[in-house]
Protein backbone atom coordinates (compact mmCIF):
# COMPACT_ATOMS: atom_id res chain seq x y z
CA UNK A 1 0.00 0.00 0.00
CA UNK A 2 2.76 2.47 0.92
CA UNK A 3 4.68 1.71 -2.24
CA UNK A 4 1.59 2.57 -4.26
CA UNK A 5 0.92 5.67 -2.17
CA UNK A 6 4.48 6.91 -2.65
CA UNK A 7 4.48 6.57 -6.44
CA UNK A 8 1.04 8.15 -6.78
CA UNK A 9 2.10 10.91 -4.37
CA UNK A 10 5.14 11.79 -6.47
CA UNK A 11 3.21 11.95 -9.73
CA UNK A 12 0.29 13.86 -8.19
CA UNK A 13 2.72 16.26 -6.54
CA UNK A 14 4.35 17.09 -9.87
CA UNK A 15 1.01 17.87 -11.48
CA UNK A 16 -0.29 19.63 -8.34
CA UNK A 17 2.63 22.07 -8.25
CA UNK A 18 1.92 23.17 -11.82
CA UNK A 19 -1.81 23.48 -11.10
CA UNK A 20 -0.97 25.50 -7.98
CA UNK A 21 1.15 28.03 -9.84
CA UNK A 22 -1.55 28.37 -12.49
CA UNK A 23 -4.19 28.82 -9.79
CA UNK A 24 -2.12 31.52 -8.10
CA UNK A 25 -1.34 33.26 -11.39
CA UNK A 26 -5.04 33.49 -12.23
CA UNK A 27 -5.99 34.88 -8.84
CA UNK A 28 -8.95 37.22 -9.10
CA UNK A 29 -10.05 36.06 -12.53
CA UNK A 30 -13.75 35.22 -12.70
CA UNK A 31 -14.76 31.58 -13.19
CA UNK A 32 -11.17 30.35 -12.96
CA UNK A 33 -12.34 27.52 -10.68
CA UNK A 34 -14.29 26.12 -13.61
CA UNK A 35 -11.32 26.52 -15.93
CA UNK A 36 -8.92 24.79 -13.56
CA UNK A 37 -11.43 22.07 -12.68
CA UNK A 38 -12.11 21.57 -16.37
CA UNK A 39 -8.38 21.37 -17.07
CA UNK A 40 -7.94 18.68 -14.43
CA UNK A 41 -10.93 16.76 -15.83
CA UNK A 42 -9.59 16.97 -19.37
CA UNK A 43 -6.16 15.93 -18.15
CA UNK A 44 -7.49 12.82 -16.40
CA UNK A 45 -9.43 11.79 -19.52
CA UNK A 46 -6.34 12.46 -21.59
CA UNK A 47 -4.22 10.37 -19.21
CA UNK A 48 -6.58 7.40 -19.65
CA UNK A 49 -6.36 7.78 -23.43
CA UNK A 50 -2.56 8.07 -23.42
CA UNK A 51 -2.26 5.00 -21.20
CA UNK A 52 -4.57 3.07 -23.53
CA UNK A 53 -2.45 3.92 -26.54
CA UNK A 54 0.90 3.79 -24.72
CA UNK A 55 1.99 0.79 -26.76
CA UNK A 56 1.19 2.49 -30.05
CA UNK A 57 2.87 5.75 -28.97
CA UNK A 58 6.02 3.89 -27.90
CA UNK A 59 6.22 2.08 -31.23
CA UNK A 60 5.74 5.22 -33.31
CA UNK A 61 8.56 7.13 -35.03
CA UNK A 62 10.94 4.17 -35.11
CA UNK A 63 10.81 3.61 -31.37
CA UNK A 64 11.22 7.15 -30.11
CA UNK A 65 7.50 8.01 -30.14
CA UNK A 66 7.37 8.17 -26.35
CA UNK A 67 10.17 10.75 -26.20
CA UNK A 68 8.67 12.80 -29.04
CA UNK A 69 5.25 12.71 -27.42
CA UNK A 70 6.60 13.84 -24.03
CA UNK A 71 8.71 16.56 -25.61
CA UNK A 72 5.73 17.85 -27.62
CA UNK A 73 3.47 17.93 -24.56
CA UNK A 74 6.15 19.83 -22.63
CA UNK A 75 6.85 22.28 -25.45
CA UNK A 76 3.12 22.95 -25.86
CA UNK A 77 2.93 23.82 -22.16
CA UNK A 78 6.00 26.07 -22.50
CA UNK A 79 4.40 27.96 -25.40
CA UNK A 80 1.12 28.50 -23.56
CA UNK A 81 2.80 29.61 -20.36
CA UNK A 82 5.02 31.92 -22.39
CA UNK A 83 2.05 33.49 -24.11
CA UNK A 84 0.30 34.01 -20.79
CA UNK A 85 3.36 35.56 -19.17
CA UNK A 86 3.71 38.08 -21.97
CA UNK A 87 -0.03 38.79 -21.93
CA UNK A 88 0.08 39.31 -18.17
CA UNK A 89 2.94 41.77 -18.46
CA UNK A 90 0.57 44.20 -20.16
CA UNK A 91 -2.56 43.34 -18.18
CA UNK A 92 -1.25 42.22 -14.83
CA UNK A 93 -1.03 45.60 -13.22
CA UNK A 94 -4.53 46.40 -14.41
CA UNK A 95 -5.68 43.14 -12.85
CA UNK A 96 -4.02 43.93 -9.54
CA UNK A 97 -5.56 47.40 -9.45
CA UNK A 98 -9.02 46.06 -10.18
CA UNK A 99 -8.62 43.47 -7.49
CA UNK A 100 -7.82 46.13 -4.96
CA UNK A 101 -10.81 48.18 -6.09
CA UNK A 102 -13.47 45.50 -6.11
CA UNK A 103 -11.79 42.92 -3.91
CA UNK A 104 -11.89 39.98 -6.30
CA UNK A 105 -14.06 39.08 -9.27
CA UNK A 106 -12.47 40.64 -12.30
CA UNK A 107 -14.01 39.90 -15.67
CA UNK A 108 -11.01 39.48 -17.82
CA UNK A 109 -8.50 37.30 -19.56
CA UNK A 110 -10.72 34.54 -20.94
CA UNK A 111 -8.34 33.86 -23.82
CA UNK A 112 -5.23 33.76 -21.67
CA UNK A 113 -7.13 31.69 -19.14
CA UNK A 114 -8.03 28.97 -21.62
CA UNK A 115 -4.32 28.65 -22.41
CA UNK A 116 -3.64 28.02 -18.76
CA UNK A 117 -6.51 25.52 -18.71
CA UNK A 118 -4.56 23.65 -21.38
CA UNK A 119 -1.39 23.86 -19.26
CA UNK A 120 -3.28 22.28 -16.34
CA UNK A 121 -4.69 19.60 -18.66
CA UNK A 122 -1.25 18.80 -20.13
CA UNK A 123 0.37 18.58 -16.70
CA UNK A 124 -2.31 16.21 -15.40
CA UNK A 125 -2.22 14.21 -18.63
CA UNK A 126 1.53 13.60 -18.47
CA UNK A 127 1.80 12.62 -14.82
CA UNK A 128 -1.62 10.95 -14.83
CA UNK A 129 -0.83 8.56 -17.65
CA UNK A 130 2.07 7.16 -15.64
CA UNK A 131 -0.20 6.63 -12.65
CA UNK A 132 -2.76 4.88 -14.86
CA UNK A 133 -0.14 2.53 -16.34
CA UNK A 134 1.29 1.83 -12.91
CA UNK A 135 -2.12 1.07 -11.41
CA UNK A 136 -3.01 -1.11 -14.38
CA UNK A 137 0.12 -3.14 -13.72
CA UNK A 138 -0.64 -3.33 -10.00
CA UNK A 139 -4.19 -4.45 -10.69
CA UNK A 140 -2.94 -7.18 -13.04
CA UNK A 141 -0.53 -8.30 -10.31
CA UNK A 142 -3.33 -8.39 -7.75
CA UNK A 143 -1.74 -5.99 -5.26
CA UNK A 144 -3.75 -5.23 -2.16
CA UNK A 145 -4.29 -1.81 -0.67
CA UNK A 146 -4.59 -0.38 -4.18
CA UNK A 147 -7.47 1.96 -3.48
CA UNK A 148 -6.08 3.08 -0.14
CA UNK A 149 -2.65 3.68 -1.64
CA UNK A 150 -4.18 5.68 -4.45
CA UNK A 151 -6.26 7.75 -2.05
CA UNK A 152 -3.33 8.49 0.28
CA UNK A 153 -1.12 9.42 -2.68
CA UNK A 154 -3.66 11.80 -4.20
CA UNK A 155 -4.50 13.34 -0.83
CA UNK A 156 -0.83 13.83 0.03
CA UNK A 157 0.10 15.36 -3.32
CA UNK A 158 -2.86 17.72 -3.36
CA UNK A 159 -2.22 18.77 0.25
CA UNK A 160 1.28 19.96 -0.62
CA UNK A 161 -0.23 21.83 -3.59
CA UNK A 162 -2.77 23.57 -1.36
CA UNK A 163 -0.12 24.45 1.23
CA UNK A 164 1.98 26.09 -1.48
CA UNK A 165 -1.09 27.91 -2.77
CA UNK A 166 -1.99 29.39 0.60
CA UNK A 167 1.65 30.26 1.10
CA UNK A 168 1.64 32.17 -2.17
CA UNK A 169 -1.51 34.05 -1.15
CA UNK A 170 0.48 35.63 1.65
CA UNK A 171 2.58 37.55 -0.84
CA UNK A 172 1.42 41.19 -0.72
CA UNK A 173 -0.85 42.00 -3.65
CA UNK A 174 1.57 44.64 -4.92
CA UNK A 175 4.20 41.98 -5.68
CA UNK A 176 1.83 39.10 -6.22
CA UNK A 177 1.61 39.02 -10.01
CA UNK A 178 5.29 39.83 -10.42
CA UNK A 179 6.05 36.85 -8.19
CA UNK A 180 3.66 34.43 -9.89
CA UNK A 181 4.84 35.61 -13.31
CA UNK A 182 8.43 34.80 -12.35
CA UNK A 183 7.29 31.40 -11.11
CA UNK A 184 5.64 30.79 -14.47
CA UNK A 185 8.82 31.82 -16.31
CA UNK A 186 10.96 29.40 -14.27
CA UNK A 187 8.31 26.70 -14.60
CA UNK A 188 8.31 27.09 -18.38
CA UNK A 189 12.12 27.06 -18.51
CA UNK A 190 12.23 23.88 -16.43
CA UNK A 191 9.68 22.18 -18.68
CA UNK A 192 11.71 23.16 -21.76
CA UNK A 193 14.82 21.69 -20.15
CA UNK A 194 12.93 18.42 -19.48
CA UNK A 195 11.76 18.36 -23.10
CA UNK A 196 15.37 18.73 -24.23
CA UNK A 197 16.33 15.80 -22.02
CA UNK A 198 13.74 13.60 -23.76
CA UNK A 199 15.09 14.60 -27.16
CA UNK A 200 18.64 13.73 -26.04
CA UNK A 201 17.35 10.38 -24.76
CA UNK A 202 15.94 9.75 -28.26
CA UNK A 203 19.27 10.86 -29.76
CA UNK A 204 17.54 13.68 -31.66
CA UNK A 205 19.56 16.43 -29.98
CA UNK A 206 23.26 16.57 -29.09
CA UNK A 207 23.94 16.52 -25.35
CA UNK A 208 26.57 19.31 -25.39
CA UNK A 209 28.26 17.90 -22.32
CA UNK A 210 26.64 15.06 -20.38
CA UNK A 211 26.97 16.30 -16.81
CA UNK A 212 27.85 19.95 -16.60
CA UNK A 213 27.84 19.74 -12.84
CA UNK A 214 26.87 17.19 -10.20
CA UNK A 215 25.04 18.46 -7.15
CA UNK A 216 23.38 15.14 -6.32
CA UNK A 217 25.45 14.87 -3.12
CA UNK A 218 23.65 18.01 -1.94
CA UNK A 219 20.17 17.40 -3.34
CA UNK A 220 19.32 14.37 -5.45
CA UNK A 221 16.72 14.30 -8.20
CA UNK A 222 15.07 11.33 -6.53
CA UNK A 223 14.27 13.09 -3.23
CA UNK A 224 10.90 14.75 -2.71
CA UNK A 225 12.48 18.19 -2.35
CA UNK A 226 14.56 17.56 -5.48
CA UNK A 227 11.41 16.57 -7.38
CA UNK A 228 9.57 19.67 -6.17
CA UNK A 229 12.38 21.97 -7.18
CA UNK A 230 12.64 20.11 -10.47
CA UNK A 231 9.08 21.11 -11.31
CA UNK A 232 9.11 24.57 -9.74
CA UNK A 233 12.42 25.89 -11.08
CA UNK A 234 13.69 23.05 -13.28
CA UNK A 235 16.33 21.84 -10.80
CA UNK A 236 18.48 19.02 -12.15
CA UNK A 237 21.35 17.52 -10.16
CA UNK A 238 23.24 16.50 -13.31
CA UNK A 239 22.10 18.65 -16.21
CA UNK A 240 23.39 18.24 -19.72
CA UNK A 241 24.61 21.27 -21.67
CA UNK A 242 21.64 21.29 -24.01
CA UNK A 243 19.24 21.43 -21.04
CA UNK A 244 20.96 24.59 -19.82
CA UNK A 245 20.71 26.05 -23.31
CA UNK A 246 16.96 25.41 -23.49
CA UNK A 247 16.49 26.76 -19.97
CA UNK A 248 18.39 29.96 -20.72
CA UNK A 249 16.68 30.49 -24.07
CA UNK A 250 13.21 30.33 -22.52
CA UNK A 251 14.09 32.65 -19.64
CA UNK A 252 15.71 35.19 -21.97
CA UNK A 253 12.93 34.96 -24.58
CA UNK A 254 10.24 35.56 -21.96
CA UNK A 255 12.14 38.42 -20.36
CA UNK A 256 12.65 40.07 -23.75
CA UNK A 257 9.05 39.35 -24.78
CA UNK A 258 7.77 40.93 -21.59
CA UNK A 259 9.98 43.96 -22.09
CA UNK A 260 9.13 44.48 -25.77
CA UNK A 261 5.49 43.44 -25.99
CA UNK A 262 4.38 44.19 -22.46
CA UNK A 263 4.64 47.49 -20.66
CA UNK A 264 2.38 49.49 -18.43
CA UNK A 265 -1.43 49.30 -18.79
CA UNK A 266 -1.42 52.84 -20.10
CA UNK A 267 0.92 51.97 -22.96
CA UNK A 268 -1.15 48.90 -23.65
CA UNK A 269 -4.26 51.00 -24.03
CA UNK A 270 -2.64 53.41 -26.46
CA UNK A 271 -0.90 50.76 -28.48
CA UNK A 272 -3.47 50.18 -31.27
CA UNK A 273 -3.26 53.81 -32.33
CA UNK A 274 0.50 54.06 -32.22
CA UNK A 275 1.32 50.65 -33.71
CA UNK A 276 3.06 52.15 -36.73
CA UNK A 277 5.14 54.39 -34.55
CA UNK A 278 6.09 51.56 -32.23
CA UNK A 279 7.19 49.19 -34.97
CA UNK A 280 10.45 50.88 -36.01
CA UNK A 281 11.38 51.14 -32.38
CA UNK A 282 11.04 47.37 -32.04
CA UNK A 283 13.19 46.86 -35.10
CA UNK A 284 15.84 49.10 -33.66
CA UNK A 285 15.94 47.07 -30.45
CA UNK A 286 16.12 43.72 -32.26
Amino acid at each position, binding site marked *: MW*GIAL*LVFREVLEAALIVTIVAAATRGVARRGWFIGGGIGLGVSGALLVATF*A*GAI*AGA*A*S*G*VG*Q*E*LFNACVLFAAVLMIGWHVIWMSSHGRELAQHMKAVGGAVQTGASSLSLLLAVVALAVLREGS*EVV*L*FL*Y*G*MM*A*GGADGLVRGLAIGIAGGSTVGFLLYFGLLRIPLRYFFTATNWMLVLLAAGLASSAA*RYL*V*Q*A*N*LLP*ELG*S*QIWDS*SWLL*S*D*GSVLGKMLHILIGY*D*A*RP*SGIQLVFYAVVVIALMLGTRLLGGSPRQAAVRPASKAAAAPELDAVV
Partner: protein
Amino acid sequence: MKRFLIAALFALPLVAIATEVPMFTLTIKDHRYQPTTLKVPADTKIKIKVINNDSTPEEFESSDFSREKIVMPNSSIEVFVGPLKAGEYKFFGDFHQDTAQGVLIAE
Protein backbone atom coordinates in the same frame (compact mmCIF):
# COMPACT_ATOMS: atom_id res chain seq x y z
CA MET B 1 4.05 16.88 -46.70
CA LYS B 2 4.91 18.98 -43.70
CA ARG B 3 4.56 15.98 -41.45
CA PHE B 4 6.79 13.97 -43.73
CA LEU B 5 9.44 16.67 -43.70
CA ILE B 6 9.40 16.85 -39.92
CA ALA B 7 9.60 13.07 -39.69
CA ALA B 8 12.49 13.03 -42.15
CA LEU B 9 14.26 15.74 -40.20
CA PHE B 10 13.93 13.80 -36.98
CA ALA B 11 14.96 10.55 -38.67
CA LEU B 12 18.23 11.98 -40.03
CA PRO B 13 20.38 11.78 -36.90
CA LEU B 14 18.94 8.33 -36.18
CA VAL B 15 20.06 7.02 -39.53
CA ALA B 16 23.43 8.67 -39.17
CA ILE B 17 24.20 7.30 -35.72
CA ALA B 18 22.29 4.04 -35.46
CA THR B 19 25.11 2.03 -36.97
CA GLU B 20 27.95 3.21 -34.70
CA VAL B 21 26.44 3.02 -31.22
CA PRO B 22 27.19 -0.13 -29.18
CA MET B 23 24.08 -1.71 -27.71
CA PHE B 24 23.58 -3.45 -24.35
CA THR B 25 20.57 -5.44 -23.27
CA LEU B 26 18.68 -5.61 -19.99
CA THR B 27 15.83 -8.01 -19.42
CA ILE B 28 13.05 -7.54 -16.90
CA LYS B 29 11.55 -10.71 -15.45
CA ASP B 30 9.47 -10.94 -12.26
CA HIS B 31 10.15 -7.21 -11.71
CA ARG B 32 13.92 -7.76 -11.61
CA TYR B 33 16.63 -6.70 -14.01
CA GLN B 34 18.91 -9.29 -15.61
CA PRO B 35 21.77 -8.69 -15.36
CA THR B 36 21.70 -6.46 -12.30
CA THR B 37 25.19 -5.16 -13.10
CA LEU B 38 25.92 -3.98 -16.61
CA LYS B 39 29.42 -2.99 -17.68
CA VAL B 40 29.62 -0.39 -20.41
CA PRO B 41 32.47 1.64 -21.91
CA ALA B 42 33.08 5.07 -20.36
CA ASP B 43 33.08 8.25 -22.47
CA THR B 44 31.12 6.53 -25.22
CA LYS B 45 27.53 6.98 -26.31
CA ILE B 46 25.72 3.68 -25.90
CA LYS B 47 22.27 2.30 -26.46
CA ILE B 48 20.47 0.20 -23.86
CA LYS B 49 17.73 -2.15 -24.96
CA VAL B 50 15.30 -3.03 -22.18
CA ILE B 51 13.15 -6.10 -22.75
CA ASN B 52 10.15 -6.49 -20.47
CA ASN B 53 9.10 -10.12 -20.16
CA ASP B 54 6.53 -9.39 -17.45
CA SER B 55 2.84 -9.04 -18.10
CA THR B 56 2.80 -5.61 -16.45
CA PRO B 57 4.25 -2.27 -17.58
CA GLU B 58 7.51 -1.00 -16.09
CA GLU B 59 9.40 2.28 -16.27
CA PHE B 60 13.13 2.05 -16.87
CA GLU B 61 14.49 4.96 -14.90
CA SER B 62 17.73 6.40 -13.57
CA SER B 63 18.35 9.64 -11.73
CA ASP B 64 22.10 8.98 -12.00
CA PHE B 65 22.20 9.06 -15.78
CA SER B 66 18.86 10.84 -16.03
CA ARG B 67 16.70 8.65 -18.24
CA GLU B 68 13.11 7.47 -17.99
CA LYS B 69 11.07 5.45 -20.41
CA ILE B 70 8.04 3.23 -20.04
CA VAL B 71 8.35 -0.37 -21.21
CA MET B 72 5.03 -1.98 -22.02
CA PRO B 73 4.36 -5.64 -21.10
CA ASN B 74 6.09 -8.18 -23.36
CA SER B 75 7.82 -5.55 -25.43
CA SER B 76 11.07 -3.63 -25.49
CA ILE B 77 12.45 -0.11 -25.71
CA GLU B 78 15.78 1.39 -26.61
CA VAL B 79 17.37 4.34 -24.83
CA PHE B 80 20.49 6.29 -25.69
CA VAL B 81 22.80 6.83 -22.73
CA GLY B 82 25.94 8.85 -22.20
CA PRO B 83 28.75 9.40 -22.95
CA LEU B 84 29.24 8.69 -19.23
CA LYS B 85 32.34 9.39 -17.16
CA ALA B 86 33.81 6.31 -15.49
CA GLY B 87 31.83 5.39 -12.42
CA GLU B 88 28.75 3.63 -11.09
CA TYR B 89 25.26 4.66 -12.04
CA LYS B 90 22.15 3.20 -10.44
CA PHE B 91 19.00 2.47 -12.38
CA PHE B 92 15.65 1.09 -11.27
CA GLY B 93 12.17 0.16 -12.34
CA ASP B 94 10.01 3.01 -11.20
CA PHE B 95 6.93 0.81 -10.83
CA HIS B 96 8.68 -1.85 -8.71
CA GLN B 97 11.43 -0.10 -6.84
CA ASP B 98 11.59 -2.73 -4.11
CA THR B 99 12.87 -5.40 -6.51
CA ALA B 100 13.87 -3.78 -9.81
CA GLN B 101 17.31 -2.33 -9.06
CA GLY B 102 20.52 -2.40 -11.02
CA VAL B 103 23.87 -0.72 -11.56
CA LEU B 104 25.57 0.50 -14.70
CA ILE B 105 29.36 0.48 -14.45
CA ALA B 106 31.13 2.71 -16.92
CA GLU B 107 34.84 1.87 -17.25
